[in-house]
Structure formats: C-alpha cells, structure tokens
C-alpha cells in the first residue's frame, strides 16, 4: 500500500507500529491529521504519535490518567516521510530526525553500558 493512494484510515493505518529507515521501532500511529475542509477532498497530512494523540479516542477520565502518567506530547510525522503502509508503517527518515526517539534517548542516558553480550 502506498501512502499517496486511497486507504481506510481506521482499519489500515491507525494503531500500526512505526519503523524508521534504520529498522527501529519509533512509536504507533495514535491518530492522524487531515488537510482540506468542508466541500473539499480530505487528504492525510500527518501521522500523530504520542500519548497526547489519544485525546478523542479515550474517555476523559482515562485521558486525565494517561496525561498524568505519560504526559501529553504529540509528534507530527508528515505523510511525505511515509515510505509504505503494511503490517507496519515504514518511514523514510531516522526516528531521531523526526523527534520520535526523544523519550528513548532520555531513558538511555541512565542505563549503564556494561556487561551485556
């Protein structure tokens, strides 16, 4: 499936894992953003990634809990950076360049680089 062709957003895109150009997991398609408006064709503009994008998909009380535990950041991934859509969404850029590995990088700083084979 190509990102420029027609697709069913809910059954073919939402909640799929994202994989960057280096083969690293870098989030889930938590929501999508469209361009267009009333009377115009809707076009997919970006994928929204991060707990803030759960808003609208979860009850308000659950969203409050999510925001307390995980924050409410949202990262936009432009559709131009999407290479293909299948059992995962493959991206053309590295996760770091798209801002998708910020949390991983923060945690990584606290992990000692010793002892593992």
């Amino acid at each position, binding site marked *: 499936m190509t990102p420029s062709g027609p697709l069913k957003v809910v059954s073919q895109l939402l909640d799929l894992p994202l994989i960057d150009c280096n083969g690293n*997991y870098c989030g889930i398609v938590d929501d999508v953003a469209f361009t267009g408006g009333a009377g115009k064709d809707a076009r997919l503009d970006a994928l929204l990634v991060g707990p803030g994008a759960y808003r609208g998909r979860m009850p308000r009380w659950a969203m409050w809990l999510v925001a307390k535990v995980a924050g409410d950041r949202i990262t936009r991934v432009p559709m131009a950076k999407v290479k293909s859509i299948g059992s995962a969404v493959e991206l053309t850029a590295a996760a770091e360049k798209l801002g998708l590995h910020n949390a991983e990088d923060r945690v990584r700083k606290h992990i000692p680089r010793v002892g593992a084979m």
Partner: protein
Amino acid sequence: MNPLELTLGIMTAVGGFVDISELVFAAKAGSMFGYALIWVFALSTGGIMVFGEMSGRVAAVAKQPVFNLMRHRLGLKLGLITLFASLIANLITCAAEVGGVALILRYLTGAPYALMAIVGTAVLMASMWVLPFKWIERIYGLLGLFMLAFIAALVAIHAPWGKIAGGFVPQIPHGLSTKELLVFAYFAVAIVSAVMFPYEAYFYSSGGIEESWGPEDLPMNKITCTVGFGLGSLLSIAILASSAQLFGPANVGPELLGSSALEVAIPFGWVGLLIALLGMLFAISGAAIETCMANAYSISQFFGWEWGRHRKPWDAPRFTVTWIVLFLAALAIILTGVDPMQLVEYAVLFSILVLPLTYLPLLLLAGDKSYMKDHANGRFGKALGWFYFALITLAALGALPLYFLTSGGQG
C-alpha cells in the same frame, strides 16, 4: 532447515514447557484423581500447539509480534484493557515463578526463603542483562531437560502403562460426589489455564521476531510447536502419573512444591532428588524470565518502543527499564510473605479469565489474508482454532464459580 537448530529448538521447547503451575497441578491432580485428568493435559497441549504455531507463523510472515498487531486489530481502548489484564495475569505468574525459584533454592541450600528470593531474582536479572535472547532461551530450556528424570522415575516405578494410556480417553471418574465433581471440574479448568498461559503466545511470537524468523522458518515453527510442546507435555503427564502411583494410594496430598521432587527421589534416592530439584529450578527460572519478558514485550510493543534482547540493554532503554521494574515488582510481591502456592492458584485463575482476550485477536490475525497472504489459516486451522477458543471461553466462564464453590480446589 538446519537440523542442529531444529533439534536445539525442540529440546528447548521440551525443557522450557513445564512451569510451577503445571508442576503443582499435575502432582495434585494425580494424587486426587489418579489418571483421570491426563486427557485434559493432552487436550490443552493441543491448544497451545495450535495457538503457539499461529503466533510463530504471524511473527514469521507479518514480521510483527502478536501484541503490535493486536492493538491495530482491537483498537486503543479494547487493546488497553487486554494489555492491562494480561499484565496482571503475567505479573502474578512471574511472582509465583520467583517464589518457586526461592523455594527450591531453600530446599537446596537451607538458607532463608526471603534471602533466596532476592538471590534468585538477582541471578535471573543478571542473566537477562548479560545474555542475548538465544542464549537465555537455550540455557534455561536445555538445563530444564533435567526434568526428564521424572519420565525415568515413572519407568523405574513400573508404572501401570495400560491405566496411563486409558487416561488419554476423555472421562469423568465414576462414583464422585457432587462436591468431588466440582473439584474435578476446577482441576480441569486449572490445567487448561496452566498449559495455555497467555504469556506463552506473547513470548513465543516475540522470540520469533528476536530470531528474525521469515516464511522459510515456518516448517521449523510447526515442528517445534508440535514435537517440542508435545514432548514437554509428556513431562507434566509423567509427574501426574507418578503422583497417581505413589501419592494417591497413600492418601498423600502433594501440597508443597518439593513433594513433586520426591517422585524422583523414591526410585533414585538422593541423586534423583538432586536432579529433580535442579530440573525444577531451571524450568521454573526459565518460566520466570519468560513471564517477565512477555510483559515487557507486551508493554513495549503496545506503545511502539524499541524492544528485544537481541539488542543491547541500552539500545532498547524503555524495554530494559520495564523488565527490571517488573522483576522487582514480582520480588516485592514475594517479599510480602504471600504463599507462592496461593499465587499459583491466583495466576491460574486470572490467566484463564484473560485467555479468550489473548487468543481471539491471534486467531483473527492468523486468518487474515491481508497480513498472512498464502499463509493464512486454512479450513482445518480455523476449525481447530475456533474449537480451542470455544474451550477456553467455556473454561473462563466456569473458572470463578468453580474457584469459589471448591475453595480453590480444596473441596
């Protein structure tokens, strides 16, 4: 297909099949109902073969582990409920396994139980930190083959093979009171749960991704699931049969984990006891790691984090922190002083409630041609899958009433 890899895969599946719940319920079932529950072990082993093969096939063909696709299939809300339920079930199971490791270390060394729980958890965490996935799987799986001593013990006590073979025929023993029938039903449900624990599917499919399986590995997946799990299940059946032969007639109820080891000690003396305890130690340790990793896999895959132990711990940082926290949580549960045998009961009960939620998405995924293409479930696979799904749903519906009616199988 590399024959060495295949043999190792099968041996690993055999050695890694048995965990604390199977040990406890097999020994108790044998002493209480003789050979009459063997068929339940055989039937539910068929179930784990079917769903294990599906989860491995999904990993090999869709190149995504089950939990990634489960969220896509179930959506965020139902996916979160499934995640939360399976986390609790797996955490209780992990705590029970850690308690089992501590008990066996205590039998072997005489040191205090709490200290052994801390030492055991530290060793398990160290091995997860140091060893890559393949080594973890192989070391614990292969050392778990000490459990074969239970089959040797069954042969040595001149088991009644005719009666054991008769146990494979579905049956309900004659002459049981209503109360005893309820206990029998509770044990049947508990065995289904113990054999088909949800963590097994998560771990197996994630393992497939860790080892970079592709469609060319499908024959190995099928053989490992059928032969490996089948032979592994024979270990549980051997424990049940020895218990029926040795404990049942003497009215001994093997309530303690160590009672199972006596099945090998009776024919082989202290050497047998030592081998049985070592087998149990490695098998339960392997299960502790599998349950902990299954939980860390599920969380990481659900939120799209880097994951896996084919990577260095710092290359999958949130996954690493997750498994460390989960192991510490399991240890904390044990250090509260809760009886590990009680945890086994809770693990089995909670897991059976989660099983339908776990296996339904897997069944749908494995039959979905958009993911699986030519490798989607055929008619036979679908029929088997839905049969076992109906079975676990029935077991899940009966689990809570049976637990309360029988006071957790006490009668």
